[in-house]
């Protein structure tokens, strides 16, 4: 899968790589715990402030990239105001750089405020809401895809076992799982209420 132009593995480099790997793991954990859970609010913010819905997925990726680059130097806490500041700046940059984007691409630049943190519901309520959200996500998966995901997630089966259980080829299982994984992430983090149509 492509070549890597990395530094040669002398002692110093090995140490550097080790530190970088530890740091990367920390950034990954931070993303999973604090950044991805903001995605629903972030997507709402982008949809609200950017006219071309086709750009949103790439905008989100660029925002995460910028957030990650900063986090690799130092993890910003709290995450929320930081992520939204990055999002706001990115939208402003895009408008300035690309003159082909009509001026009304961004609804109101000055109004690109950061959503206010309202006093959160207690953890129990939040957990219930999350549970409902997850149930809804599973319900919306296409039936065969759902079956594969449930066998993997609940019964802890391997791909091969799932194929045997469902009586389908392993590549069909791969397809179901790939689709299911992505749809779960989208629905869990709140990008879409509906999963994408399987290709």
């Amino acid at each position: 899968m492509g070549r890597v132009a990395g530094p040669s593995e002398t002692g110093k480099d090995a140490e550097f790589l080790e530190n970088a790997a530890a740091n990367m793991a920390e950034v990954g954990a931070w993303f999973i715990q604090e950044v991805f859970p903001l995605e629903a609010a972030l997507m709402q913010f982008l949809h609200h402030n950017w006219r071309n819905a086709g750009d949103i997925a790439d905008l989100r990726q660029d925002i995460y990239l910028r957030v990650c680059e900063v986090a690799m130097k130092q993890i910003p806490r709290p995450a929320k105001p930081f992520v939204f500041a990055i999002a706001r700046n990115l939208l402003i940059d895009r408008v300035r750089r690309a003159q082909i984007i009509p001026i009304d691409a961004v609804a109101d630049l000055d109004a690109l405020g950061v959503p206010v943190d309202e006093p959160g519901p207690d953890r129990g309520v939040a957990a219930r809401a999350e549970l409902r959200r997850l149930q809804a996500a599973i319900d919306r998966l296409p039936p065969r895809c759902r079956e594969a995901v449930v066998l993997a997630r609940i019964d802890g089966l391997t791909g091969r076992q799932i194929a045997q259980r469902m009586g389908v080829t392993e590549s069909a299982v791969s397809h179901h799982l790939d689709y299911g994984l992505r749809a779960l992430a989208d629905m869990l983090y709140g990008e879409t209420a509906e999963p994408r149509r399987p290709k």
Partner: protein
Amino acid sequence: MIEATRTNDAISAADIEANAASWFRRRQFWAWSEADQIELDKWLAQSLAHRIAYWRLQGAWEHSGRLAALRPPASESNAPSGNTLKAAVKIAAMAVVAIVISASMAAYVLTPREKAYAAGLGQRQTVRLADGSQIELNTNTALRVLDGAPARTVWLDKGEAFFEVRHDIARPFTVIVGEHRVTDLGTKFVIRRDVDHVKIAVVEGRVRLEEQGTTQRPALLSRGDVVVASGHTISMLNRSTRDIANDLGWRHGVVVFRHTTLAEAADEFNRYNNDKLVVTSASVAKLTMNGTFRTSEIRQFTEVAQAVFGLHVENRGHEIVISR
């Protein structure tokens, strides 16, 4: 290792995500070799966008495991899955065995008796089942056990019990607490039944929680999950191993307080003793404390209240009143 940053201009976010899903799926569900890991590491190192997309799927997957309530609705399970088919074959096999066994023996196997166990105020008791599973009863607890052939069932009628279950797919272990059913999936867990709510904490492994008479899907609880079910509402939180271990102090005859209010501490002591602690004023009730006490040592507790908080303690028959 961290070289590439924005190599994504040519590749869309959706393509990267598709690749990430494929990697994650291969790693998670298919045979995985060191060579595969090297390839994955290379792909991850190519671009931060790859890494982020991978983390995102990983996060969602982990998340779905903790909150999982993923069983398909009952209406769709008309085609027997392999599991239920296997179970059916096993049950059929057991039935054949039962017929072969002499009639009286079969009658015994097929009509197992329900046995009742209880622990009085301040007492504890351990029940061992034939298969090695163990139930520890805390103070003021009553339960019934049906150690049957097709299934093991426990009714927790009142109090609190710790379950250490030998998992056996062929003989599911279920605890019934009022409207709630807790089924073992390979587990240690504790259930406490109070007047208006039930609290379930998973110490190890997983359990499935269902509510009878509703269309609610079962919830899967994993290690560290604590659920409080009250009426039809359920709230869930995840607690540290240490917090859960503290709540299980009673198995060693102690109560452990960490930032516990005096009111809560008094309630806790009152579960174990005839003499009841009474906290009179709201301001006293709100004081918080740490410490570990024997469940029977009310005196030790009141001494701390006197010495540390400068409170007034008065014995009035079976009541011990704590005030300013």
